């Protein structure tokens, strides 16, 4: 189990920095927003928490296709499926590795990028906290999507299409918490809901992911 986690982390670091790239994408989306909506700082401040959440979500989404597809292509997944590890555990570990290499860096970077978007001072704590609570759900849900599409030739965009609607509740509660936090309103309810989604997803989705992966392998 820990061997798998270590291997995935090592691969992420070694493959030309799978680690830094999610982060870089996040940075670039954030930077592109002023180019596209215009440089007015009042507008930017209003949309800042939302942009940070959306950017994190997209960065996460884009890294999903390397979550399982690489192992599928070179045959490792067949071998892992016949190894003495339950597939549910394999997938949970892979979600964890994905979160550590993608979600966690995004959480840490968000406050820095908030500066670029004129995020109001009260918002920094809440954007970080909401991302910290919400991104694990993104990884786990994403693993399900990756397992669904793993057999398909370059299922990249299909993967996005399938996963996006599943991300809706997480995004809504997460962004709502961040926005309320930035506006100085109460954030307990959305944060609690967000936590509930994350815990539920971590507890249940690996079983669904393993089931679809088994179907795809056969």
């Amino acid at each position, binding site marked *: 189990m820990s061997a798998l986690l270590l291997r995935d982390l090592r691969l992420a670091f070694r493959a030309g920095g799978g680690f830094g790239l999610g982060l870089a994408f996040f940075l670039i989306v954030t930077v592109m927003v002023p180019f596209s909506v215009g440089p007015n700082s009042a507008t930017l401040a209003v949309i800042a928490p939302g942009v940070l959440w959306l950017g994190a979500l997209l960065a996460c989404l884009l890294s999903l296709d390397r979550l399982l597809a690489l192992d599928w292509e070179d045959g490792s997944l067949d071998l892992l499926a016949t190894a003495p590890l339950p597939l549910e555990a394999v997938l949970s570990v892979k979600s964890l590795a994905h979160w550590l290499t993608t979600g966690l860096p995004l959480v840490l970077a968000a406050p820095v990028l908030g500066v670029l978007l004129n995020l109001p001072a009260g918002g920094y704590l809440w954007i970080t906290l909401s991302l910290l609570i919400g991104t694990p759900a993104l990884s786990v849900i994403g693993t399900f999507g990756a397992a669904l599409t793993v057999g398909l030739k370059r299922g990249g965009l299909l993967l996005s299409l399938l996963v996006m*609607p599943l991300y809706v*509740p997480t995004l*809504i509660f997460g962004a709502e918490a961040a926005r309320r936090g930035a506006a100085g309103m109460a954030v307990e309810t959305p944060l609690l809901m967000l936590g509930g989604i994350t815990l539920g997803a971590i507890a249940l989705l690996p079983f*669904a992911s393993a089931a679809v992966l088994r179907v795809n392998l056969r």
Partner: protein
Amino acid sequence: MSIWEYANPKKFLHTSERVLPSLWVASAALIVGGLIWGFFFTPDDYRQGSTVKIIYLHVPAALMAINAWFMMLLASLIWVIRRHHVSALAAKAAAPVGIIMTLIALITGAIWGQPMWGTWWAWDPRLTSFLVLFLFYLGYIALWEAIDNPDTAADLTSILCLVGSVFAVLSRYAVNFWNQGLHQGASLSLDKEENVADVFAFPLYTCMAGFILFFIALVLYRTGTEIRARRMKTLIARERMSDA
């Protein structure tokens, strides 16, 4: 004599062919009748004017959009548990009908919103959750299309449907929490005072019944098509096997 007999494709084809003609006729009669009744023979609403006539399309379509998903959920469960091919194919057959119903509800709603709310679109919870439903349909159909092996496709789409349903309900709550709506509440519930007046209600019921029958007829027919397509695929594969 159990209901599972119809899980045999032949039996299914045989029976559906017998009931389909009357279903087509009944649904056409109800829809056309209900629409004519509603369009020509009901008064305008005192607040909404003649736009109230849109309700005869909007509400039945919205109803079927949701119920089609329920039907797919049920059929997916049957496939997962009992592995009857017909039920998987029925789920596949229902999805495009469901997405068109969703689209009709969205479009009539948008057209209605222009005079009533002064905007085509607002991020009202009900509207928003329909949009999310539309996305679920889109993903579901795309997944069916993307997979060659029919059994694999059936397995994957049915699990997607189960997981998706959970998330669709979650989205509904999330969206409600996120924005208070403009849209009217369910006014057909029996105990509310603000029920639509009977003049509107009866043609509406007629249309709803028509849409339900139309949906059933379409799904039966399309399931038959899927069964034949599946048999054809198998036959062609069999033929290849014989000369490969």
